[in-house]
């Protein structure tokens, strides 16, 4: 028997302790979601995408803020059955930080890190390197791409064992602030209109069908939060950082936070095209299972919210 059938139970919303999931952090702490859902929201914090997506597919989660990579993978894994992307959350916010390289050539034969084999940054890094005629599997000709945990990237970069790293915010900002790195590429510059999703809001199919009203309320709250963020970025950033601090016990330094979020733009637009492209890149590299992506985004709720 699948869990979460009872429509009366609170809506289970997944998110990560991550400043780029600002809507979730702020919305949960200042009660926006609670108000929108009549108090029937049940937040579940995760450490990483896979666990959240596993939970969503297992029916233990109704909706979640998550990176586009895991979202696409979960979508494809479930043959398009498991979930839908109902809204975007943030765009941009991934950079290639280097120690002293001034161009792609300077990275040849060096080691460059990405956060996770096959995740969006990893894919972006490899595509970028190839575009610049560099191999990605070591050798003097190519660059040795080394997936590493973000925390390890920071410490290794600080100790000069990495020539560069393609990381999401706030790690980019931290590499600059704490490890004396320099931003060589802002991933935004690689996308037309400089837009690509870093976080999206996904909803499980069952929730979408059985409790559309609640989901709609969720999306409405999300859109409102996004609007607030766009309206006053510094204030919202501060709120998000407080919430983040409450969860990890250690808020980010203001400078780092401001720098990090300066490259992140709030948007409720799911950014269909870039999202699809990301997914296809991942598929091309064999990190995502094959399958049709057309049904991944369901903009109908956004449309409803926009109409009213």
């Amino acid at each position: 028997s699948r869990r979460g059938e009872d429509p009366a139970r609170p809506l289970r919303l997944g998110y990560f302790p991550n400043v780029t999931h600002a809507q979730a952090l702020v919305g949960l702490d200042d009660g926006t979601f609670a108000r929108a859902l009549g108090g029937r929201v049940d937040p579940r914090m995760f450490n990483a995408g896979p666990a959240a997506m596993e939970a969503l597919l297992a029916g233990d989660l109704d909706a979640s803020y998550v990176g586009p990579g895991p979202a696409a993978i979960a979508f494809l894994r479930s043959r398009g059955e498991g979930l839908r992307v109902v809204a975007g959350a943030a765009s941009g916010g991934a950079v290639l930080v280097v120690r002293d390289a001034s161009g792609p050539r300077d990275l040849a034969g060096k080691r460059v890190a990405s956060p996770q084999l096959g995740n969006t940054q990893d894919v972006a890094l490899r595509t970028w390197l190839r575009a610049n005629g560099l191999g990605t599997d070591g050798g003097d000709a190519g660059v040795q791409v080394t997936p590493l945990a973000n925390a390890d990237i920071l410490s290794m970069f600080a100790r000069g064992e990495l020539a560069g790293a393609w990381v999401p915010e706030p790690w980019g900002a931290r590499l600059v602030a704490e490890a004396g790195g320099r931003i060589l590429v802002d991933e935004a510059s690689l996308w037309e209109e400089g837009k690509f999703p870093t976080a999206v809001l996904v909803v499980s199919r069952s929730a979408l069908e059985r409790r559309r009203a609640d989901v709609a309320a969720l999306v409405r709250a999300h859109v409102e939060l996004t609007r607030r963020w766009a309206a006053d970025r510094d204030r919202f950033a501060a709120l998000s950082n407080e919430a983040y601090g409450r969860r990890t016990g250690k808020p980010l330094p203001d400078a780092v936070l401001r720098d990090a979020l300066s490259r992140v733009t709030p948007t409720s637009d799911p950014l269909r095209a870039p999202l699809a492209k990301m997914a296809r890149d991942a598929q091309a590299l064999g990190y995502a299972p094959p399958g049709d992506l057309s049904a991944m985004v369901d903009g109908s709720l956004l449309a409803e919210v926009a109409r009213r």
Partner: protein
Amino acid sequence: MLADGRLLHAAARSLGRLAQGYLLSAAIGVPLGVVMARRPGVNAALRPVVLGLQALPSICWLPLAILWFGLSEIAILFVVVMGSLLAIAIATEDAVCGIDPVLLRVAGTLGIRRVRFVAGVLLPAALPGVLTGLKLGWSFAWRALMAGELLFVAGGLGQLLQAGREVLDAAQVMGVMVAIVAIGVLIDRVLFRVLELRVRRRWGLAEAV
């Protein structure tokens, strides 16, 4: 630095889960080990896979845990039990197989059977080895718990550890490590050391130390 309140709170939650999971493992593992040692059929059936299963890292159990038990305490418990159960069973099996056959013959000739035999002869005779198993099972349980608490954020030291690592907060990581070690020292002192000394005295091994 880190508010000790949080460390203590997390430690308390983890200990609660550990206690449940560990006791469950012991309660199942010891009998399982005895059965494996005494029932050739069961042994033939389980023995081959037990060592392999025991070697599976907890991360293998996480997806199954979510699938079967959802985002619940049960799921974490499951991960902990899968982490330590078989270790205890293996050690118990070895201990029971190592019992001096004379003692088994004595029990036979004295007509000691079934429950009395297991509880009154097998377990006491195997106790030293079983204790080793319980000690190692205990650390298996800890490690599994640390992995299990990453299933979803439900407080506990595992979470604190992960977060500390994420934000590169060495102090927080150290804090958790110290907490784990401290708890280990404590348990060893109040539980295992005491039991061992008793056993060794009773068995007349004390002087051997």
